[in-house]
């Protein structure tokens, strides 16, 4: 029998279920007595709802209830003086409207269609107030986050770049970008009595969802069950529990029946976060031989008036390159818009686009190859924290990527390489993202037939979590992968962190590893061996011999103090070959190579897929994606999949994922560092820099659409 090992390209354990439709997503549970909730969005951008005429809606066929600010049953966590007050928007709790599209009512009916129709019959009277949505107009009203307590970063001297022999100072703009997973956000909620509730909901973290719902309704967390077994993409949009999920629970309590609430695609633009519109200023100062003497990174990004959102846009400039002087500043601009949320490579992807573009501009100013410039400023320790890296193989990423993309064919002179009418260019963009590990617990169960079941309350939003956990268990236990089942997406399982920040394999993988080790030790002991014997053992045989129906244990796993002594990051270098058509402005990415130092790679197959997926997101970021806003009306004008352009297959070239695949010796037992974010961080700069190399046109406002090429 073949022994599956960490690093093998194992097929997805749930692949067959997914492609045959057997995988049940949150919107597919047919709970008896199910009713349907449809939200009614506000059509003003700031002000109050003064009256709502719901009579026609209530008379419409099949309508069970209409919840409005004037009749909403109170949500305990929304009330002043609540033990744990709910943060953020509290739907129907008052009659304030903070942004256009904010739900002001929820219609519950026997069918989705009837609820949708009844929602159109509600007549709302508003008292509108002046509003501010224009980021550019309000740029100067940016505030220091956390009530002014956010601290700017300074190493050495602030703004030292200004006095350097060679200076680049530029602004880079990123529009609002929507997560837009294929699966819409959906929640089905039903109560059992007055104190127990169950949710099937799209969630990146069932433990977090459990906590949020129990807080909102003042329930014992044990009485809140969250199921989210399959998730059809999320990209950060399901990291938190959103107000509409609370509303579904509230409605289910009111109608005393299960309620399913599905957002429309248009509502996905306003109610589940987005990557905020950001303007960054980068100042780079260098000596004529290409040594950085100063880095300054400033960022302004949009947030909501009713809740502050911050991200790490500027942080990458503190540690990615050696520079005696570095400083960052960060402000947010509160507007009458929905609150943003972390989106794949949150902050770092935004920041890396600016920093890596500016570095490219510097390379041309200096006449130094962009890779050589990065090597001249390579740092072997973390200059921000003045600590050693737990591991760093970014140099190897440069080297392997340069080989694979054919960097030697790149011309240092922009606009000089052609294939027929098309101009050819090459670009590099790098990324880094913190390698985290959170406390996680896993329950392992050995059954008499020698199969093993493992449970942990993690999620799988796409990377193949169950598959990589199965592989870690197989390798650690020394049994084949098909003898192992891994279960996730259920809040009754032992705790795991929310699937975000690229930490799942590091955190849950460690718990699975440790649980397997503990199980094996127990069995070794039963077999009369030394606990740490590594020789193969007959799992089922030991159970039989000791007349045990099964063996079960729950293992906690967490990091020690290493994070205090080491800086832990995953690193990536992305390389792009791009064609630009000088007459039409069309840009085609011809090839992308992503080289990653993500520590040990658990499953080569799913890891490659994850890298390719991130690169596709990066291509969307740099070439096509933009949520377009009309500031006269305060509304998005492209809130649909026809006009919000995610990349299509024809936009996507060959993407090659290369892994350094060296275990990090510090972070966790398996040596994994994480891939989810760095798969995207750096892609935008790689492509934008290649566009410049091809055409001589530097586009600092994403996305790089044909009009921008022509007008540059």
């Amino acid at each position: 029998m073949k022994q599956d090992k960490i690093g093998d390209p194992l097929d997805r354990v749930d692949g067959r279920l997914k492609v045959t439709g057997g995988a049940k997503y949150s919107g597919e549970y047919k709970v008896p007595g199910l009713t349907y909730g449809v939200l009614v969005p506000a059509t003003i951008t700031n002000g109050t709802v003064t009256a709502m005429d719901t009579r026609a809606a209530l008379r419409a066929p099949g309508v069970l209830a209409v919840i409005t600010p004037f009749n909403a049953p109170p949500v305990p966590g929304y009330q002043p003086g609540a033990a744990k007050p709910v943060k953020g928007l509290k739907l129907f709790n008052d009659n304030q409207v903070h942004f256009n599209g904010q739900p002001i009512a929820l219609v519950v009916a026997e069918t989705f269609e009837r609820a949708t129709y009844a929602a159109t019959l509600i007549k709302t009277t508003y008292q509108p107030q002046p509003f501010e949505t224009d980021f550019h107009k309000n740029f100067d009203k940016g505030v220091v986050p956390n009530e002014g307590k956010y601290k700017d970063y300074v190493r050495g001297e602030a703004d030292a770049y200004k006095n350097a022999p060679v200076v680049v100072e530029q602004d880079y703009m990123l529009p609002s970008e929507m997560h837009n997973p294929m699966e819409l956000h959906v929640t089905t909620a039903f109560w059992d009595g007055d104190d127990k509730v169950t949710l099937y909901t799209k969630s990146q973290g069932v433990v977090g969802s459990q906590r949020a719902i129990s807080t909102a309704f003042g329930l014992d967390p044990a009485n809140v069950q969250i199921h989210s077994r399959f998730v059809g993409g999320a990209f950060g949009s399901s990291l938190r529990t959103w107000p509409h999920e609370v509303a579904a629970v509230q409605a289910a309590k009111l109608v005393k029946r299960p309620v399913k609430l599905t957002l429309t695609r248009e509502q996905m633009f306003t109610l589940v976060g987005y990557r905020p519109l950001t303007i960054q200023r980068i100042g780079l100062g260098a000596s004529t031989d290409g040594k950085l003497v100063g880095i300054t990174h400033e960022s302004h990004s949009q947030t909501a008036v009713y809740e502050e959102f911050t991200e790490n846009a500027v942080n990458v400039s503190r540690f990615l390159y050696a520079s005696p002087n570095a400083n960052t500043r960060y402000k947010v601009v509160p507007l009458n818009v929905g609150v943003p949320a972390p989106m794949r490579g949150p902050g770092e992807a935004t920041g890396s686009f600016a920093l890596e573009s500016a570095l490219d501009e510097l390379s041309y100013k200096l006449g130094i190859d962009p890779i050589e410039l990065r090597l001249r400023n390579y740092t072997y320790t973390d200059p921000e924290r003045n600590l050693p890296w737990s591991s760093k193989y970014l140099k190897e990423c440069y080297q392997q990527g340069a080989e694979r993309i054919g960097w030697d064919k790149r011309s240092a002179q922009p606009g000089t390489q052609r294939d027929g009418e098309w101009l050819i260019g090459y670009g590099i963009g790098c990324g880094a993202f913190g390698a985290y590990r959170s406390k996680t617990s896993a329950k392992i169960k050995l059954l008499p037939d020698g199969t093993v079941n493992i449970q942990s309350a993690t999620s799988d939003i796409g990377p193949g979590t169950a598959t990589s956990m199965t592989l870690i268990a197989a390798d650690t236990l020394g049994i084949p992968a098909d003898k192992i089942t891994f279960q996730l997406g259920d809040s009754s399982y032992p705790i795991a962190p929310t699937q975000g920040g690229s930490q799942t394999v590091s955190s849950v993988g460690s718990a699975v590893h440790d649980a397997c080790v503990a199980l094996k030790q127990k069995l070794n002991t039963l077999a009369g061996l030394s606990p740490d014997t590594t020789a193969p053992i007959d799992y089922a045989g030991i159970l039989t011999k000791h007349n045990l129906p099964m063996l079960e244990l729950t293992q906690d796993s967490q990091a020690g103090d290493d994070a205090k002594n080491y800086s832990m990051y995953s690193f990536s270098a992305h390389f792009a070959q791009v064609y630009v058509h000088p007459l039409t402005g069309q840009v085609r990415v011809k090839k992308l190579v992503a080289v990653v130092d993500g520590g040990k790679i658990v499953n080569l197959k799913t890891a490659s897929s994850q890298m390719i997926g991130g690169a596709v997101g990066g291509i969307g970021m740099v070439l096509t994606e933009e949520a377009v806003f009309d500031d006269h009306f305060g509304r998005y004008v492209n809130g649909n999949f026809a006009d919000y352009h995610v990349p299509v297959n024809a936009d996507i070239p060959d993407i090659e994922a290369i892994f350094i695949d060296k275990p990090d010796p510090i972070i966790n037992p398996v040596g994994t560092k994480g891939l989810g974010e760095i798969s995207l961080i750096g892609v935008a700069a790689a492509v934008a820099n290649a566009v410049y190399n091809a055409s001589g046109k530097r586009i600092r406002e994403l996305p790089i659409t044909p009009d921008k090429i022509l007008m540059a």
Partner: protein
Amino acid sequence: MNPFQYTRSLAAAGAIQSVLKEPHAHFLAGGTNLIDLIKMGVVTPERLVDINPLPLKGIEKTATGLRLGALATNSEVADHPLVLQGYPLLSLAINAGASPQLRNMATVGGNMMQRTRCNYFFDTAMPCNKRSPGSGCGALEGINRMHAIFGASPACIAVNPSDMNVAMVALDAVVHVKGPKGERKIPFADFHRLPGDHPEKDNTLERGELIMAVDLPAPAFSQHVAYLKIRDRTSYAFALVSVAAALKMDGNMITDARLAMGGVAHKPWRLHAAETFLKGKTPGDDTFKQAAQIAMQGAKAYRYNQFKLTMAPNAILQALKTASA
């Protein structure tokens, strides 16, 4: 979506009678645009008259050219041997639009009736004279990147979104319609209209009139053709600017030319003056640039679509280069 009556018609005369019953009744063909609009509350019909059972699917040779039945799907037309052979420009244009799934449902007549993609037209919470006459034009001072540079009016600056229409107008197609007053023919160029004071009217059809077929004249441009569509992603996006170009060549001389643009006006925009200029000329960048310059006369851009004043002539140049190559 509002409640409405649904009628399925087996004959054209019956369908026309049914649609005349209410002021807001619509024929339903492939439904790829109309159903979306109904779901969004942009169109609120009292009745839908489903014409799919009508025998209008044929693609047949006529004495002079080719007749495309109004219910022939976009895929059927684009892939038809006689179209590929005699009217490759039409095939290229159709295949530049939408997605295979949509083209499998969308019909010749339905594509002609496709409404604008102007975002203000699509959002009932914003003003639009086309959707709601007199409410104003949100795009005029709003996000007008996709909007017209030719033939717009203060009431409406929307563009016709179809790719098929651009080829049809270039090829001098003729539309056959049947209505309560009988049958008539409309030159394709006169089928769609400019917005003027009545942007709610996309075309010159009269109440109750049904498109029966579109006739293509004898194949004249089967070799030197190009359809260039510049858009924000490589597929499945509406045109920023598109150009249909067809040349008849005698050796190295252009003996006849057809040029039309999409994404620039409320109707597919035929470029007669540029065509006339090209006749008798030798292909070359200078000639094509001059043709493009002529084509651009009278263009007027708005805040966010200034780029079209550059992109459109570039696109004409590129399309002519491709067609003549």
